């Protein structure tokens, strides 16, 4: 009996300790310095983009390196070359130890085993911050940017929501005291009043340059709010459905309120058109707030205002985009653990304030509750509102997307140029897209219909 009681007591004690996990047993003792001590001197490698979120973390890096002794080597690469660089690096056994994962690459990276699920590390209390608090991330972000097939691989790092940035002074001059709430208003009310081609002034600019900008920012933006989508539930093209056609036709019709040559506009051109007062409104990623709010790059700092993207007939389904950081499978055990420490730190609640103040957009909910942050950063409220409801598959996140994106980029710009009709262009994209999906095994049952 005594033995039984002892065994039972030990079992209970053990289960309590396990259940408490790192937060119970190690919370008091855990510190980044101690956790990183075995990895002092380890070098980890990552690719960064030339965007505000990366400039922000670069500013904070010396602090991490000082605390941990881990050296973070980063290379700044243009977005359009990032996937190419990473894929070649992973397939040739290169040196990257941290993967920068755009939400549309997560399927490809995860299915090929190039990135590791975080549960490989979260089980190890020595290297996992008891305040990791995965529930502190916006659920939409953790789901869309970091997870694939129900498994979490990455933590949301550079987070975007599509927002309506507008020049409140221009709107006021035209007699509007608030931004448009629906796309219909943009077309019928705001567009005509804010456009004066003779003065080279336009209501709206939609970045539509060929590439991911065309497919993600321009084409897809007008499918979802109009009730359309790229694929139906059987993964066949849904582009010729009345809803998708209505959205694409709307984009075409809206062109009369945009500057000429919109198909040559990339992010920089669209942001600049607003910053220089040429257009009154743009729908851009939240990350561009710091560029638009900087007097060195923007003439409209005092007039800058931000709102959620307008609603379509199917509601407000704004563009969703962003990057997570994941541990690359190719690193050594030491590098993997050092990389995990870096990823936790870069996305942690602890540095969320510093990160936001340095120009980044954190994926943590708590920071946007702070009154001073809300007051200083005008984008916070609309962005938080946008992240409450969204479509993780705004762009499908499966491995076939990069090939499909190329097709959409080509035929999407052809539609805008009038080289093909909306319906013929949609058919062409549909045929080519289904060809790609067929090759990838989505129609013969060999692959799950995950997006």
């Amino acid at each position, binding site marked *: 009996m005594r033995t039984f009681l002892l065994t039972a007591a030990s079992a209970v004690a053990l289960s309590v300790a396990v259940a408490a996990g790192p937060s119970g047993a190690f919370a008091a003792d855990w510190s980044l310095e101690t956790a990183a001590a075995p990895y002092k001197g380890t070098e980890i490698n990552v690719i960064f983009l030339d965007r505000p979120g990366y400039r922000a973390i670069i500013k904070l890096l010396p602090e991490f390196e000082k605390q941990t002794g881990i050296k973070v080597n980063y290379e700044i690469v243009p977005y359009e070359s990032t996937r190419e660089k990473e894929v070649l690096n992973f397939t040739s056994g290169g040196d990257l130890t941290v993967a920068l994962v755009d939400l549309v690459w997560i399927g490809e990276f995860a299915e090929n085993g190039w990135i590791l699920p975080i549960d490989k590390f979260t089980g190890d209390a020595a290297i996992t911050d008891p305040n990791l608090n995965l529930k502190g991330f916006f659920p939409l972000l953790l789901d869309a940017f970091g997870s694939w097939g129900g498994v979490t691989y990455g933590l949301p790092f550079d987070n975007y929501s599509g927002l309506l940035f507008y020049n409140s002074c221009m709107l006021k001059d035209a007699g509007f005291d608030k931004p448009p709430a629906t796309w219909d208003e943009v077309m019928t009310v705001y567009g005509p009043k804010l456009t004066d081609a003779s003065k080279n002034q336009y209501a709206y600019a939609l970045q539509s*340059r060929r590439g991911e900008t065309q497919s993600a920012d321009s084409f897809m933006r007008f499918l979802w709010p109009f009730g359309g989508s790229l694929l139906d539930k059987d993964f066949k093209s849904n582009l010729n459905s009345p809803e998708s056609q209505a959205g694409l036709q709307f984009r075409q019709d809206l062109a009369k309120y945009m500057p*000429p*040559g919109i198909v040559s506009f990339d992010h920089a051109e669209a942001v600049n058109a607003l910053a220089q007062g040429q257009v009154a409104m743009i729908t851009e990623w939240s990350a561009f707030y710091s560029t638009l709010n900087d007097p060195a790059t923007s003439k409209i700092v005092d007039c800058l205002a931000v709102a959620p993207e307008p609603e379509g007939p199917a509601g407000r389904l704004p563009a969703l985009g962003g990057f997570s950081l994941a541990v690359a499978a190719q690193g050594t055990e030491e590098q993997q653990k050092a990389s995990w420490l870096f990823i936790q730190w870069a996305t942690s609640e602890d540095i969320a304030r510093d990160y936001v103040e340095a120009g980044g957009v954190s994926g943590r909910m708590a920071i946007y509750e702070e009154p001073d942050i809300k007051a200083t950063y005008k984008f916070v409220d609309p962005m938080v509102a946008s992240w409450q409801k969204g479509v993780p598959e705004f762009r499908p996140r499966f491995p076939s997307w990069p090939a499909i994106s190329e097709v959409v980029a080509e035929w999407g710009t052809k539609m805008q140029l009038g080289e093909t009709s909306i319906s013929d262009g949609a058919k062409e994209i549909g045929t080519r897209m289904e060809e790609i999906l067929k090759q990838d095994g989505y129609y013969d049952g060999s692959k799950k219909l995950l997006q």
Partner: protein
Amino acid sequence: MSAASPTPSKPAGRLNPGYGRWTPALFLAPAVLALLVIGIYPTIFALVTSFRRYNITRPRDGFPFIGIENYQKVLSDQTFWDTLGLTFRFFLTVMPFQIFLGIVIALLLHKPGLGLVRTLARVSLVVPLATTYAVVGLIGRLVFNGNFGVANQMLGWFGIPGFDWLATTNGAFAAIAIMDIWQWTPFCALIFLAGLSMVPVEVEEAARLETSSKVALLRHVQLPYLLPGLTAVLILRSADVLKLFDMIFTMTRGGPGTATELISIYIQRVGFRVFDMGTASAQAILLLILTIMLSRLYIRVFYREIQ
């Protein structure tokens, strides 16, 4: 006699103590090795890959041999032919300008006198050549910007309204052609200048006494000396246009639509966006064959004329 015969060989031996039958091979070895690593191995790898299914984003598919399936796919791919057609259109657009302007510049620089100006002009010809392609593309984006570009300002001097070059099909094509002409005309000029300096002075002087027509002088005396240079220009530029990538990618990314999608941009899309290395290799091998055929054609047509 017996004492005399070893004498000449002895000093030679002393002068070149390490010289043996392998010495030339050793001198050649670094170059051959570099060529093997940089040129021959990748070409053979591309050839092998072109007969296999190889998508590096699908490692589970392996690297199976599929015969000529990739070649069949490429030859029946309408986009391949469209982009190849556009590449030839581009070549036929830029070459006449480059050859004509190159000859004009070379003739101006060939004129006697103006020593310092000539030297300066020659040196400045190298500047566009030395500019990285990607930078040329970035300069192009600024020059042809619809709002503040220099191109529209220049049109304005002649009362022509500006437009957004890079957003229209013909404008974007014209813009990449103009940037290519800007970059490569100096190269043609330098090659032709070298050709002109080969004309024997006495022949040229004699011809000047015979005729005062500069056209006749060019046609009958100088042109034959320009033909080897012209052949070189055509061979190099053909290969160059077929692989022209950086400038266009930074300037237009092949757009708008497919207005500037030359064959190299398309191959890059297949190879490094879709990562279908098998198909991209087949495309590259076909281009290699095309380049060799064109080179043979130029040599046959122009060299025969010289002989």
